[in-house]
């Protein structure tokens, strides 16, 4: 956090800028909300009013109680939870060695992670599916009954983790680069081994990067549609994006419900962001090190 304190006029300017920016950021979302309240499934309306005439929460009610929204929610939470765990663990460890260590293949490894993002995703869908099918990871059979997790879900978790990893690894590495190595040296002198130095000293200092990694893994899994759409055929296994498209027909989309579902899908993301953003700007002072 910057230590400076700005003069009041400057603060007012900042507030004005921020308010205008927030309006621009939020307005389209408000229109989505308005669509969800509009009876009769119209995507557009000629009035600018956010809240339509005869606004009703009917779409939400039907969505939650008559459709499988809660089931989709559970499945999404399941898949996303594991994606985040895997994403954060693997990225934090891999990023660390890329930052600290020099070993053969380091540069190649970094570039490799980058490479994986460059091929247009739409062309990867078919072979990805074939590969997963060969390992039985497209089957709809449940493997963990308590959680309702199916083999297909495991396939998704693997896929999402791998999609999220490149950014996360690079992000963690970049952040570790800003932490001085003298900290580990001090820890090693104190008798800790390499892993302990990493886990107990360095990792806690990288909280902002961990937050971004977690958020990003979360979003990757939460919103992914194309692969999930092909793999999921059993209705009870649908994740949220797939359930969402159930509401879309060729012409006759149930726009009110679609919009309602979109609003609801957005809420957990906002919640997670709110919780984690504390750590994003937690304000770590490294003052103790320099002295």
């Amino acid at each position, binding site marked *: 956090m910057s230590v400076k304190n700005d003069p009041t006029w400057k603060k007012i300017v900042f*507030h004005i800028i921020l308010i205008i920016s927030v309006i621009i950021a939020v307005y389209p979302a408000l229109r989505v909300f308005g669509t969800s309240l509009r009876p009769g499934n119209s995507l557009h309306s000629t009035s600018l009013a956010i809240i339509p005439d005869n606004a009703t929460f009917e779409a939400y009610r039907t969505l939650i109680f008559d459709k499988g929204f809660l089931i989709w929610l559970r499945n999404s939470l399941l898949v996303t939870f594991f994606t985040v765990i895997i994403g954060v663990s693997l990225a934090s460890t891999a990023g660390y060695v890329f930052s600290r260590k020099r070993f053969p293949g380091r540069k190649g490894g970094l570039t490799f992670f980058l490479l994986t993002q460059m091929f247009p995703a739409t062309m990867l869908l078919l*072979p990805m599916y074939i590969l997963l099918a060969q390992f039985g990871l497209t089957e709809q059979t449940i493997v963990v009954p308590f959680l309702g997790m199916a083999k297909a879900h495991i396939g998704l978790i693997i896929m999402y983790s*791998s999609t999220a990893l490149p950014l996360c690894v690079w992000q963690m590495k970049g952040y570790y680069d800003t932490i001085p190595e003298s900290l580990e040296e001090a820890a090693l002198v104190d008798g800790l081994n390499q892993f302990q130095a990493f886990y107990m000293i360095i990792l806690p200092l990288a909280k902002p990067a961990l937050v971004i990694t977690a958020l990003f893994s979360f979003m990757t899994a939460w919103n992914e549609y194309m692969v999930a759409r092909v793999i999921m055929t059993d209705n009870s296994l649908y994740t949220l994006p797939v359930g969402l498209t159930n509401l879309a027909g060729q012409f006759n989309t149930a726009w009110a419900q679609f919009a309602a579902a979109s609003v609801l*899908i957005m809420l957990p993301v*906002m919640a997670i962001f709110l919780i984690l953003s504390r750590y994003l700007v937690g304000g770590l002072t490294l003052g103790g090190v320099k002295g």
Partner: protein
Amino acid sequence: MSQPDENLRFTSALSNFSLKDFWREHKFSYLMLLPAFIVVLFVVIYPFFYNFRLAFSNLNMYNMRQFIQNGTLDYIGIDNFIQIISESSFWIILLRTVVWTVINVVAHVGFGIFYAIILDRDLMFKSIYRTLLVIPWAIPQYIVVLIWKGMFNYRYGAVNLFLRRLGVPGVAWLSQANTGFSAALIVNIWLGIPFMMMIALGGLQSIDPTFYEAAEIDGASNWQQVKHVTLPLLKPVMLPAVILGVVWTFNNLRVIYLLTQNTLTNKIDILVTHVYRSAFEFYRYGYAAAFSLIIFVILLVWAISFIDYINED
């Protein structure tokens, strides 16, 4: 470093090489790296080589049948590639994709850092602003892009209604290629700022406040502090985001596809929308795979040059 020294180092390294020492020195590294590497390898290598094969074939709807049944392909060498490069539309689309990417990423990073710096200061309601500004990233893309499409409607769209209120006549955004391109830019910039803002916010935390104190003592103004302290120290954190941002924007299918679906079909395509159409509407799988490889190579060459360029300073 002179020649003889190098040779000496090399040969002594060779003769001193022992597997046990190598493993001991690098064990930690490889073990920490292994899980991530395996996961990504698994999901990327096979699909990549699958497409690699297809790129040299002429797989389309008519010879799909034998491919499904026997896995046989008619290989046509580099014909796909030659055809692609010799179409004048390829170069136009490529140029457009580059322009699209540059404008987007500059805007994303510029605004992202801008907001991050403001939100890092001592302001009231900071966390509320921060959370609300993330909404474009949080809301499911499919419906919000369609809402934007409605907002650009000539008669009823919010954008024109707002412009008219300012006394500016409405623009038929999605009827012309250049205004349509601007509309797509606006939507994608709107979508992409929060992400860069978050990364920049995280990166700002890694900057030791004493740097600012020192700069303050030296009499540096706010702007100078940003230029000489903040931006350089943000580099290691922003760099991966910028590289990936470029790659993602370059390959962003959705925004342009949805916005132009029945308004400006084929008129402001970027490379990936063209690939998508070829594969999924015309079944030209061989062609599309070759096209994708070309995209891949373009990005690869760019990324390597960019990283080298950044590492020089």
